[in-house]
């Protein structure tokens, strides 16, 4: 293949021609007669090209006598005219009412939307800036069918957990982000204001070009570029937003007197005078009434007919509703492209983001547990020792940590057009991250269970350096009814990481100036260091073919060689084929085209990989510390031996996906819609399996194999209606949704304990999820609750657990063997939602606009882990006040206990996490042009916005959209940092 490419390249050198003619002209819109800047002018014989300048004029030197010029511009019908010896050619372009030439981002390029065969959704900058948050992905909630954006935490600066079309692995299910061509795992460093669009690639046709990294879905982030303005001057844009965050809901916990009553049931006589016990609301004490969030972004952009530039500068700061937690960052964004000659372009895109955060003390569960009958302070003002897990306010006070990060990502590229329709591109991308953490806990003594006898200091740093070098050749050709393009490329990438951590105790002073590891010998000093390097080398290839705008075909192929794959499986091949049919362009549709603007059926099939695997498991590591004690003085002498035997066959997980889609646009495209069915089966999922003992791996050791299989399937739909009413009102209504069915098809080739995975550790020994064949990944697992044991008779006649008593929960003997034991535990829920949906309404009148975005989920269960774990006597949620007190009093809420049978893993702790939320409500006013001209502004708008204004859910905790990045233990609420309601006011100025 290389040789062929070289032949191509060197063959080009022989091309020379002689005669030259310069053609000039002006390009206008045929309907409005306004001049059109930026129109591509291309000479078909001479293969020269240019673009019209800001006044719509162009000048092009051609070499051939018999040439023709093609004028093309997005949104207009392309025209080709013969030069016929002329030196001036003026042209008027007709707007393309079908808007067929809308281009969308695809892997390694763009494609006409009409030619698209894959399942792709694009979200534009306006939507991306709608949610005030550090991470642009927050704005994607409810915007793309099939995309779930959940929360692992609501802490300042936290990244959401993103899942596309279910969960297809037991390992890392996170999507791949491609930011201006550079691959990365998170986009927390990006300011939403610098993003032009985010394109979600969903099916195999769209993701196959990302090969072993595409299986969890790909989100292509395109940052803003400079564009030619109508007056040719640079554009300045200033956006400011100030927000207030508030806790949107409190957990209904027992008040002091209610709690005292319950405790008196458990331990009679604990509280003598219930009416006089204190009533402390710890939630009021740990959460601030409001916490500010600010975002300021400034950009400078512009373009000439040769060069484009964009410079963005942003500042973002979010304070947390828990004191002493915050996140702030500065973003610098550069995006420049230079046209060196007619044929050669070079550019650079760079982002640099320094950030700093202070993590919150882990007090949410603390406040949940603390007895409401306790007070926070002693009479002398010191922290009181608080029963039920300690004093949360002291935990906040003694928490000190800071993380500083500098992240930069960018890409330098050059591309050259050659022959007719060929473009070669080389691109060097990089991502660097440097992060340092300091944590300090001073000496304190609040009580025997809340004390720190020595000061603790921990430090850690890590650095990442990734580079990516991509070389591609693209080819485009259009002959009559045939439109063809192809892409071939060779890429290589290396990722390097190193982390260093150290901790010590007994600092000589608690002053922050001394929060450094002291030099010299120190018996409390511990240190650790780890590093890894991984490399990928790939070949990629794509063809698109369109016949007569009716029949569409796309083929993708990528071969990835990765150091993450075992030596026996170093190279993986991935690919897809897809076809589409634009029915509206068929002759039998003639006459219907007034009513139907778009009608397309498409289908794709392909395989894509997931390389986010425990790749170190391919190796048999040599274990140090296998030491021997020798000699009369009993000296420890170092030794080493082999650890668990690695699996050199280990490789990527493979997702095979079928997608069938349908798109339409009717009533002058006022009503548009899409519908997709997807079915993806992921096989070779990495799974730790126990080995036969004689292999010598020892007790409780596992080897990793590509062994499990999971299927995700479902429907996605999207409907949009927009219309302008004659009276100046315009409006738009959109609705989208997706179903997910997740099922484990296969686990393990060997029997034994590897054939199911117990996870979801609550920390008290209980594992509340079980992943097994036939169920969804990470299904909640426990006893079914069938009531409360009302009396001795019922107790005697029911299968029971040891120590089960009257008033306790009654569990189902599901296997009917008359014995209640672990065999009776079953699947009692799943965190994977059955249905994810969103809908939005936008209404505008003159300068005013009102936008409402709703979203929700159905069928995602949550495990209320914070309620379930009770090593000590803690406070309870309000439902416990209605506890069983005697036969017939309650068949749902058992007698109050501090531990025991009622805290076995069971349906008692399963809650429905379905929710329906008003995600954002925005009222904006755009200043009228007459006013703007006076103040020399091009555009100005102000808005007020509410985010998460209300959430309907039956879940008793703060946040129903809890998702964990660990797919095997997702949806367990151990007291997550609440997601807040946000009230914002903002200003956008353009001048």
């Amino acid at each position: 293949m290389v040789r062929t490419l070289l032949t191509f390249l060197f063959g080009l050198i022989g091309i020379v021609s002689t005669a030259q003619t310069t053609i000039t002209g002006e390009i206008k819109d045929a309907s409005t007669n306004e001049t059109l800047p930026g129109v591509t002018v291309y000479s078909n014989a001479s293969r020269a090209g240019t673009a019209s300048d800001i006044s719509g004029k162009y000048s092009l030197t051609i070499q051939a006598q018999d040439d023709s010029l093609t004028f093309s511009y997005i949104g207009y019908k392309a025209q080709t005219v013969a030069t016929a010896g002329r030196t001036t050619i003026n042209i008027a372009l007709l707007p393309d009412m079908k808007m067929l030439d809308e281009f969308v981002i695809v892997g390694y390029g763009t494609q006409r939307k009409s030619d698209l065969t894959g399942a792709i959704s694009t979200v534009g900058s306006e939507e991306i800036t709608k949610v005030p948050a550090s991470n642009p992905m927050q704005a994607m909630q409810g915007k793309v069918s099939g995309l779930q954006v959940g929360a692992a935490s609501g802490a300042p600066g936290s990244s959401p957990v993103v899942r596309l079309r279910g969960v297809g692995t037991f390992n890392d299910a996170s999507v791949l982000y491609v930011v201006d061509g550079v691959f990365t795992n998170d986009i927390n460093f990006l300011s939403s204001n610098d993003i032009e669009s985010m394109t979600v690639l969903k099916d195999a046709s769209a993701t196959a070009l990302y090969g072993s990294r595409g299986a969890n879905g790909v989100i292509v982030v395109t940052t803003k570029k400079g564009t030619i303005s109508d007056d040719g001057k640079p554009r300045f844009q200033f956006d400011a937003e100030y927000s207030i965050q508030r806790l949107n809901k409190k957990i209904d916990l027992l008040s002091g007197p209610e709690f005292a009553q319950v405790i008196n049931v458990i331990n009679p006589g604990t509280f003598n005078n219930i009416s006089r016990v204190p009533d402390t609301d710890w939630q009021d004490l740990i959460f601030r009434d409001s916490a500010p969030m600010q975002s300021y972004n400034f950009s400078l952009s512009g373009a000439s007919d040769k060069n484009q530039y964009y410079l963005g500068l942003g500042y973002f700061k979010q304070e947390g509703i828990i004191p002493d937690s915050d996140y702030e960052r500065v973003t610098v964004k550069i995006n420049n492209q230079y046209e060196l000659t007619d044929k050669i372009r070079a550019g650079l895109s760079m982002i640099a983001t320094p950030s700093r955060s202070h993590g919150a003390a882990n007090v949410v569960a603390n406040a949940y547990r603390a007895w409401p009958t306790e007070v926070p302070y002693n009479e002398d003002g010191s922290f009181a020792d608080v029963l039920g897990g300690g004093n949360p306010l002291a935990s906040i006070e003694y928490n000190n940590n800071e993380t500083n990060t500098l992240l930069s990502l960018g890409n330098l590229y050059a591309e050259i057009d050659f022959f007719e329709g060929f473009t070669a591109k080389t691109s060097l991308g990089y991502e660097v991250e440097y992060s340092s953490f300091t944590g300090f806990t001073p000496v304190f003594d609040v009580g025997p269970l809340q004390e720190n006898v020595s000061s603790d200091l921990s430090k850690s740093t890590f650095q990442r350096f990734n580079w990516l070098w991509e070389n591609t050749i693209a080819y485009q050709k259009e002959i009559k009814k045939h439109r063809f393009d192809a892409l071939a490329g060779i890429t290589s990438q290396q990722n390097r990481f190193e982390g260093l951590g150290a901790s010590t105790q007994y600092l000589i002073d608690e002053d922050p100036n001394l929060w450094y590891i002291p030099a010299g010998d120190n018996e409390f000093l511990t240190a650790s260091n780890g590093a890894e390097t991984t490399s990928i080398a790939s070949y990629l290839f794509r063809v698109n073919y369109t016949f007569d705008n009716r029949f569409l075909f796309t083929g993708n192929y990528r071969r990835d060689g990765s150091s993450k794959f075992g030596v026996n499986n170093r190279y993986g091949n991935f690919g897809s084929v897809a076809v589409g049919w634009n029915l509206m362009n068929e002759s039998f549709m003639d006459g219907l085209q007034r009513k139907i603007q778009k009608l397309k059926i498409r289908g794709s099939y392909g395989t894509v990989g997931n390389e986010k695997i425990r790749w170190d498991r391919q190796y048999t590591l040599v274990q140090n510390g296998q030491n021997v004690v020798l000699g009369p003085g009993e000296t420890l002498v170092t030794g080493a031996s082999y650890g668990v035997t690695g699996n050199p066959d280990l490789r990527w997980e493979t997702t095979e996906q079928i997608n069938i889609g349908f798109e339409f646009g009717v009533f002058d495209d006022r009503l548009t819609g899409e519908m997709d069915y997807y079915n993806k089966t992921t096989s070779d999922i990495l799974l730790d399996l126990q080995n036969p003992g004689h292999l010598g791996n020892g007790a409780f050791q596992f080897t990793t194999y590509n062994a499990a299989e999971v299927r995700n399937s479902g429907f996605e739909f999207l409907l949009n209606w927009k219309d302008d009413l004659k009276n100046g009102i315009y409006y738009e209504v959109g609705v989208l949704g997706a179903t997910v069915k997740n099922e484990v098809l296969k686990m393990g080739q060997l029997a034994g304990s590897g054939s199911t995975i117990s996870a979801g550790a609550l920390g008290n020994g209980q594992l509340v999820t079980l992943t097994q064949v036939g169920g969804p990944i990470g299904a909640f697992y426990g006893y079914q609750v069938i009531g409360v044991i009302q009396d001795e008779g019922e107790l005697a006649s029911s299968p029971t657990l040891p120590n089960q008593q009257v008033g306790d929960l009654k569990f189902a003997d599901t296997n009917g063997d008359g014995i209640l034991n672990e065999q009776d535990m079953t699947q009692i829920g799943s965190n994977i939602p059955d249905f994810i949906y969103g809908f939005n309404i936008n209404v505008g009148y003159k300068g005013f606009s009102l936008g409402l975005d709703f979203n929700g989920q159905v069928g995602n269960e949550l495990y209320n882990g914070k309620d379930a774990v009770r090593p000590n006597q803690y406070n309870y949620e309000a439902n416990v006040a209605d506890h069983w007190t005697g036969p017939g009093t309650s068949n749902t809420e058992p007698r109050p206990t501090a531990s025991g049978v009622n805290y076995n893993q069971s349906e008692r702790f399963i809650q429905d996490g379905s929710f329906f939320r008003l995600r954002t409500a925005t009222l904006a006013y755009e200043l009228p042009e007459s006013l703007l001209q006076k103040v020399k502004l091009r555009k100005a708008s102000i808005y007020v916005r509410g985010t998460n204004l209300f959430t309907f859910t039956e879940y008793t905790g703060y946040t129903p959209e809890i998702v964990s990045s660990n797919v095997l233990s997702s949806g367990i609420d151990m007291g997550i940092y609440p997601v807040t309601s946000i009230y914002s006011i903002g200003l956008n100025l353009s001048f």
Partner: protein
Amino acid sequence: MKNLNTHIFVCKVLMVAAITLVLATIHGCSKDFLDNPPQGFLTNAIFPENAAQAQLAVNGMYADLRQWNLYYGGYPIVDMMSDDAVKGSNPGDGAGLRQFEEFTFSADIGEIANWYTTLYEAIKSTHVVIEKVPEIEMDQATKDKHIAQARFLRALHYFSLVRGFGDVPKVINLTPDPGMPRSPKAEIYNEIIIPDLLFASDNLPSKSEWASADLGRATKGAAQALLAKVYLYRGDFTNAELMAMEVVNSQEYDLEFDFSSAFLPLGEFGIESIFEVGAVPFGAGATGGNQFANTQSVRGDPNRGWGFNRPTLDLMAAYEPNDPRLDATIIFLGEILDGVPIIGDLSTPDSTFVDGELTEIECYNQKVWVPGFTTEEPFGYNVKELRYAEVLLIAAEAMNKNGNSGGALLQLNKLRQRVGIADITATDPDALHELIMLERRREMALEQERFFDLVRTGMAAEVLGPYGFIAGKHETFPIPSSEIALNPGLVQTPGW
């Protein structure tokens, strides 16, 4: 002219692009580019590959001897299965271990799976040396010593496997077949254990030949002593006598003057020690400790450990009235040991009665006693794998079987003379055999020998029947059911 310049420029750029592609291809195809072994770790591909690493791998084999699970899955269950001991600790602690006392356990029980898998883990460490060290260019004599140590340890572990499980998978390298079936016990003896020990006894230095800093490594005497024991188990009394007398006549070993000293820190690597596992009291694992003694040490006050493996009244009754080994073997409540008063555990009844009959008293295994006050010191206890006293017992038993009762009495009475009790004089082979076995019980009590001795001599059904022992079944442990689930090549032992 301008056009030509442009053309040249285009050519140049294309050349650059071409070179770029070639470079990218070189990058992508280069084998090294995709070879990124884990950083901060050696892998099996490159270890051990020099003399220093060979030494590390040899040392690494000994670390397995400090693994808790290597000793019967953590608890001395074979003592509990004998008439010498019961579970111990308080009644609720480790209640499942009662199944060993009562012979009610099944192939599902965790201890035997942990023991089995850990023995093979230790065998894997020996194969790192046996398989990899021969390829290393290094001093041949050192190399032979390395391999001899490895083969001694492999034999030791296989001996545990065949004593415990009978027929077992015969793993002889680092890459065994996962579906490997069981090999007959005799084959394991004849093709692994005996050849390994012969090789070891030929190639290992004697105890005095090792440098003092190497005490604790396998020796010629250790290989001979273990071989003597192996022959005894095989019923090959001629070779058992021969090997035992090699050890006796080597002048390398003798009995400690005081019986207790054989178990106390002052006897570590001492005259009676043939093979013991060095440990230091700093927690288990890389820090050099062994939890073996902590598991059995006094529970409560002083808090020295968990208190498992409680001596039985039956064991106490086995001693002659004036035999000081009774008091040196068992810690009774109220005694003061090395200045530490033994109060015992509040959650453990001092005396346990069943149907009005005294069945147990709270007491502990004194052979694992380490002077001190905390749970930490017992982690420094050196497990005594082979001591000279046992060699004398092997010699006596074998000589008696070989018709030399006089020689047998000579060796046997050395043990009685040490503790100041009267010599045995019986010469009838059967009577003497019984007396030797009784002496073995007293001398080796709570050292995980009694159960195997009863099985070996065919006495198990008679002695242990009342506790639940079923002849034809309980002579060995079952293959752990988890192993049978994981390896379809395994067939469960008949009776299980």
